[in-house]
């Protein structure tokens, strides 16, 4: 049963991957600027430029270039960076782990914060906590993350000097400095997420608190606390799981900005630099990885959903 579900899922994924990579491939070539010129500089002779072009296969039609890339990718070869000559998969590996640490922290902040605000707001309706949660739910999505990042840096790094403003240490090397350095970027990344989850879960909880089965629970003699945690929450989480899944994709995109501001050597930075240099093998690789991650997350979302809701069958 489950295997069938998995296979069906994969069948959807393949055309999706093909289309997105093709779009990205063509888009990069549409960007004005030439990688070869970027490498050789303006003073390069025409012959030299043409030669390098041929070497890189850039003289061929776009479709052919794409199929060439695709064929290699299927065989596990993502090529080399046009600019630095580094293997693309190597560059991806190095940066992916960094970005994942950032995104995971961002997701944890979002989920914990969102759950906290939504539940307290429902538990103490019309209290100041409720108003804070509602305010935050609206405000959080309205503030762009680069602004949050800069305010945080000014306040906590420059004024209070509590945590470093930029830089990154991997959790496997030094957990303590990892934590110090990840707090600000993690929070900048998660503010919107906290707001989205708070708002969605709050309205979802409000609905389930009025549901007949919660009334049944009360008629059994449960307390408000038990009504929320044992009866309302699991049901209220169902639609929110989808939101959380989608949030992951948004957050992955937002890392581009946050990594740049906090000078975190992750995939976001990698792709920003690569776009600047028209290094499209790298860009293509990053896009591929991001799409695969989003697909994997969607898949996990579906599984979590099925675990929470016994009515779902594969």
């Amino acid at each position, binding site marked *: 049963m489950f295997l069938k579900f998995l296979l069906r899922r994969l069948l959807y994924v393949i055309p999706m991957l093909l289309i997105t990579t093709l779009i990205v491939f063509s888009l990069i070539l549409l960007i004005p600027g030439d990688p070869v010129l970027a490498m050789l500089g303006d003073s390069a002779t025409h012959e030299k430029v043409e030669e390098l072009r041929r070497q890189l296969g850039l003289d061929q039609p776009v479709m052919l270039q794409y199929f060439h890339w695709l064929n290699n990718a299927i065989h596990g070869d993502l090529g080399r960076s046009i600019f630095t000559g580094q293997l693309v998969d190597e560059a991806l590996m190095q940066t992916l782990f960094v970005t994942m640490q950032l995104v995971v922290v961002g997701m944890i902040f979002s989920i914990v914060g969102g759950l906290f605000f939504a539940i307290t707001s429902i538990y103490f309706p019309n209290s100041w906590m409720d108003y804070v949660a509602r305010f935050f739910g609206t405000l959080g999505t309205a503030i762009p993350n680069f602004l949050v990042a800069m305010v945080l840096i000014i306040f906590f790094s420059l004024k209070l000097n509590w945590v470093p403003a930029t830089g990154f240490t991997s959790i496997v090397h030094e957990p303590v400095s990892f934590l110090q350095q990840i707090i600000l970027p993690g929070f900048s990344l998660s503010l919107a997420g906290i707001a989205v989850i708070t708002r969605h879960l709050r309205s979802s909880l409000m609905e389930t608190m009025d549901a007949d089965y919660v009334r049944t629970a*009360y008629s059994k*003699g449960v307390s408000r606390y038990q009504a929320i945690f044992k*009866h309302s929450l699991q049901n209220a989480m169902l639609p929110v799981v989808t939101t959380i899944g989608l949030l992951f994709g948004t957050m992955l995109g937002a890392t581009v900005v946050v990594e740049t501001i906090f000078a975190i050597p992750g995939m976001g930075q990698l792709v920003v630099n690569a776009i600047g240099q028209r290094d499209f093998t790298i860009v293509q690789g990053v896009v591929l990885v991001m799409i695969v991650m989003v697909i994997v997350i969607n898949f996990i979302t579906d599984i979590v959903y099925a675990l929470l809701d016994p009515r779902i069958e594969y």
Partner: protein
Amino acid sequence: MNTETLLKVNHLKAYIPSSKGEIKPVNDISFSIKKGEIVALVGESGSGKSVSSLSIMGLNAGAIKYRPDSSILFEGQDLLKLKEKELRKIRGNDIAMIFQDPMSSLNPVHPIGRQIAESIVLHKKVSYKEAKKTALDLLNKVGIPDAERRLNDYPHQLSGGMRQRAMIAIALACNPKLLIADEPTTALDVTIQSQILNLLRDLQKEFGISILLITHDLGVVAETADRVLVMYCGQIVEEGTVEEIFENPQHPYTKGLMDSIPSLYGPSKEILDAIPGVVPNPLELPNGCNFVTRCAFATEKCYEVSPVLEKHSSGTRVSCWNPLTKEALSENDRESAVIVT
């Protein structure tokens, strides 16, 4: 039958303050339920029957307030004066409730067994494992076949009738003294309806539970109840034993309800005699009798003075200036009031 009184509702007045004026979903009702008795509270939606029953459970929405002279005595204790924490000990333990739609009233994400065991663990000092065992017994008792397996089933895996049986099992989990059944069969198929009613009656006999049966359907009443309270616009308009009410409905409203039962046995009528008109807006109740806008027997007095619930010669209580008599009934379609048993 035991004659001890279990529940006594005195002058229950529930109101909702609003900017346009006060709404009184329950406007001064008094009744009592004896031990082991099945009392039916009958009325259309909006008559105040649900608010009355939820008042007993203390589960009305926060907007609904009670007048200070209202009281609901359960074994001598005034439920309206209890704190939430004390009420919680009574809910599900001494007083349990089942609801109209068993699908939406059961938690869709918990197995049936867990939902039954939850009640038990809440009120009794037993382990979850023992509670599960009791849950199994209960499922057998309410007639769910293959109970062992059903324990781990989710509500969506059960049929409508089975779900309502499961609801009843939850309600019975702690051997309550009073069971409030709010339209327990309305959402079910006709064939299943009588099975559930039979089950309720059997359980009442077996455990001596008192049942307050809330319904709009006099057919359900005839099958199940001992005594009937008919509510209209927040007030009780007639009260009597099932026999009395079906033999001789004295209030024109009761008579109207009776005429709208499709009779299974009597001669089938082309069109059921429905009560003309609609329930008045709670903010614009008529002067005098609340039923006056729809009553075929209204006289001048009815427009001016509200009738009070009075004991009549037959022993029933009725609030009407012109109560119908048996003789008057027999003149027109008597057959429609034939008791269905």
